[in-house]
């Protein structure tokens, strides 16, 4: 949920861009297309009540719109802009007050003094948002001091700066700061809205927002308790002492000097959840584990070739390795038959022996086709009658019709199946009888019978099957397998996303990339020899030297371990940036491992100093948003940190501060919203959350101030 305290809907001053003009309809559409759910309309020296009310009606409960105005303030020579924003409940009175104040002026020539503003608007309990420093034209410190001194609610005076970094710096220095879009062109609002402030706590209304600004403890605790806090009773230390903390399904931060037991507390939290059946472990940054975590050596790498429509070729490999030559019929048998004319009277009566055998392959094929058609049709009829979806779609009459037609088809197919079977077997029987009679007559008469075959059929079919098997293997190993791409994490806005790539490649016979490893125990040289042999076999399927190549195949070292094409797979795994191999540095490894941890969906995240080896910019741009996103999803995030970016920018619901002094260890619990930390053993002893966190996390307020110089004080 984002807030925008500074928008324009009208071109009021002559210097205003025309692109500030927007209709209520488009305004509402634009706002609802963003994450902005609280928006203040602050036109220059004008408040349009009708427009406000139309927008309020159109937005309904989808978003809050607050009435406001951006006023020109003139004190002596000093000129500045001040936003005055009031409760929507006061919109009508506010409109009247604006009208009275600006009467006789145009937006271009209107100016007011701070006293006049207070006199007109302070009774509305407004929010004053003053242009500050680089936000021009800005109110001077003197003008602001007057405003803060004379208003009834000084906590409602906020300084408007130009961006989030400036706001962070001013907040760290004790100034209430915020920034708004000050939109000049509504066409750019959606993109621009991403940088607007997030509301860490839910804001129900304008009045609620003001109470939160006041850091009203009751209001804050009521809001915090919406997150269903849980009381954790832990025993993290060796002395068995008890530590009870309130854990939110949000961000819970532990900070304090080194050696104050923060890691022990995190371990105790992990133990607590694990014992209650919730997956929880302490994440500790260890950049050298990246290769192991991603299994770059592929120890557990597996692939299912069926998923890529690749045949494993188990039968084909086996058949090829076991292939042997088939004999042919000696032509001498034919010569002998014609040379020795059979003179036996009985033999001459057996005419069957003189019939030529018939070709049975076609008949067998026809039967196979009908057999398959019968089975498929029968299965389909069963599917139709059993399937609930079909029954939902077809009424009884339709289903009966479909079933009847298919049953008739099944009957006809069944008849054809039977006749084709009998035709096939008739040929088989005939050929068998011819062969048997010829053999018996040959045996009884001692005269050679006419050979039943030249041997061509069996010889050719053997070679054909060798070609078919070799072709299937080659087809499989010539199939390209798409690269597997896994997003590891972002290396920051400049570098982009680090990916982890897994390339699978079959040894095609010509692959010689040294970076590729064999996926199985079969070594690379036998793989290469095997594929080359299969290619030679395919090329020489009808050559006289075919079986030399098959012998070479069987002579390959460890060939018995190659049972499928899976054993011919090679792989390489590597990290890549923009598609190019990339070796992440130790810091970058830490970055992506932390992202991976936060990217894993679970209920409890426990991070021990996640900032280790990471740069401030990366923590702010990537890690803090990820942590916030987990918190928004209602997950419990426990973080031990020495980093102000994490402790401050995440605005944790719970902060546990551990320290050690002359009287031993102390534990303070609080949050940034009330800005205090309370000693759990002595409620009277309280610390300022902001000061303590800055002192502990950055080594003193001076160090925190230095950050302004690093970022630039714009």
């Amino acid at each position: 949920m984002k807030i925008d305290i500074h928008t324009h809907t009208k071109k009021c001053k002559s210097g205003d861009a025309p692109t500030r003009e927007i209709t209520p309809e488009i305004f509402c559409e634009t706002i609802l297309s963003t994450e902005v759910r609280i928006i203040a309309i602050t036109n220059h020296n004008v408040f349009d009540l009708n427009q406000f009310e139309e927008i309020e009606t159109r937005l309904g409960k989808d978003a809050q719109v607050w009435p406001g105005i951006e006023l020109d303030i003139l004190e002596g020579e000093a000129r500045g802009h001040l936003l005055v924003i009031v409760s929507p409940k006061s919109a009508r009175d506010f409109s009247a007050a604006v009208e009275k104040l600006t009467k006789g002026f145009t937006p271009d020539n209107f100016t007011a003094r701070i006293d006049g503003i207070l006199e007109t608007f302070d009774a509305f309990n407004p929010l004053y948002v003053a242009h500050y420093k680089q936000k021009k034209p800005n109110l001077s410190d003197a003008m602001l001091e007057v405003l803060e001194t004379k208003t009834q609610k000084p906590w409602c005076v906020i300084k408007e700066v130009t961006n989030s970094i400036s706001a962070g710096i001013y907040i760290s220095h004790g100034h209430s700061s915020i920034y708004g879009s000050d939109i000049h062109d509504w066409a750019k609002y959606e993109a621009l809205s991403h940088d607007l402030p997030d509301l860490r706590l839910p804001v129900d209304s304008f009045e609620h927002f003001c109470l939160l600004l006041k850091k009203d403890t009751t209001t804050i605790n009521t809001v915090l308790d919406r997150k269903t806090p849980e009381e954790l009773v832990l025993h993290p230390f060796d002395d068995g002492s008890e530590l009870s903390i309130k854990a939110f399904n949000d961000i819970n931060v532990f900070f304090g000097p080194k050696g104050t037991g923060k890691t022990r507390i995190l371990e105790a939290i992990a133990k607590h959840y694990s014992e209650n059946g919730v997956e929880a472990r302490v994440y500790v940054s260890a950049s050298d584990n990246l290769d192991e975590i991603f299994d770059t050596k592929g120890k557990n790498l597996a692939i299912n070739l069926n998923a890529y429509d690749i045949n494993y070729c188990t039968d084909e490999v086996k058949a090829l390795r076991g292939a042997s030559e088939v004999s042919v019929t000696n032509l001498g048998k034919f010569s002998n038959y014609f040379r020795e004319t059979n003179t036996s009277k009985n033999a001459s009566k057996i005419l069957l022996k003189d019939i030529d055998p018939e070709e049975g392959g076609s008949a067998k094929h026809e039967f196979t086709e009908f057999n398959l058609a019968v089975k498929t049709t029968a299965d389909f009829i069963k599917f139709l009658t059993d399937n609930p979806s079909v029954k939902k779609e077809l009424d009884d009459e339709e289903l009966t019709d479909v079933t009847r037609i298919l049953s008739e088809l099944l009957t006809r197919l069944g008849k054809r199946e039977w006749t084709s079977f009998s035709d096939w077997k008739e040929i088989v029987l005939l050929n068998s009888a011819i062969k048997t009679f010829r053999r018996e007559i040959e045996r009884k008469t001692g005269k050679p019978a006419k050979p039943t075959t030249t041997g061509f059929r069996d010889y050719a079919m053997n070679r054909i099957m060798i070609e078919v098997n070799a072709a299937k293997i080659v087809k499989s190993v010539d199939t390209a397998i798409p690269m597997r791409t896994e997003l590891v994490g972002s290396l920051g806005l400049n570098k982009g996303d680090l990916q982890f790539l897994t390339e699978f490649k079959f040894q095609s016979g010509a692959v010689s990339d040294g970076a590729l490893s064999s996926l199985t125990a079969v070594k690379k040289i036998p793989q290469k020899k095997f594929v080359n042999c299969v290619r030679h076999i395919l090329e020489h399927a009808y050559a006289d030297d075919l079986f030399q190549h098959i012998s070479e195949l069987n002579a390959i070292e460890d060939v018995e371990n190659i049972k499928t094409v899976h054993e011919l797979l090679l792989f390489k795994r590597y990290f890549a940036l923009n598609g190019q191999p990339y070796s992440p540095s130790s810091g970058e490894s830490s970055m992506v491992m932390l992202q991976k941890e936060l990217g894993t969906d679970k209920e409890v995240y426990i991070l021990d100093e996640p900032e280790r080896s990471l740069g401030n910019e990366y923590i702010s741009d990537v890690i803090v948003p990820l942590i916030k996103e987990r918190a928004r999803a209602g997950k419990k995030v426990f973080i031990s940190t020495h980093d102000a970016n994490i402790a401050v920018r995440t605005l944790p619901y719970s902060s546990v501060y551990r320290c050690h002094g002359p009287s031993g260890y102390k534990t303070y619990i609080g949050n940034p919203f009330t800005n205090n930390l309370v000693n759990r053993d002595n409620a009277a002893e309280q610390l300022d959350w902001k000061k303590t966190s800055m002192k502990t996390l950055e080594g003193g307020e001076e160090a925190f101030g230095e950050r302004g110089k690093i970022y630039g004080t714009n």
Partner: protein
Amino acid sequence: MEQINATVECLDGKYFIKIKTGGEDISIPMSDDKPNEVKSAFNKIITRIKAGEFEIKLEVVGEDLFSLVANEYLAQLNREIQEVRNEMKQYGLVK
């Protein structure tokens, strides 16, 4: 169906069936049992089957033993060629 002619040839007293495919002739020895030469001839026939359907016909069928043998042998071979071609069709190996 294309018809390919064959003849019975005698060279140095050895008889052969010579099949004239248009390219390299295919020779099948009849006088001696030479299985490797028969296999080599079969390899060429298989390759020829891939190019198109055909039948081998003995140009002149004489009454001598080798003509009878060749005639019978080719009749059987033609039947088997047809069967093999049908099988090759199933595997998509013929044009």
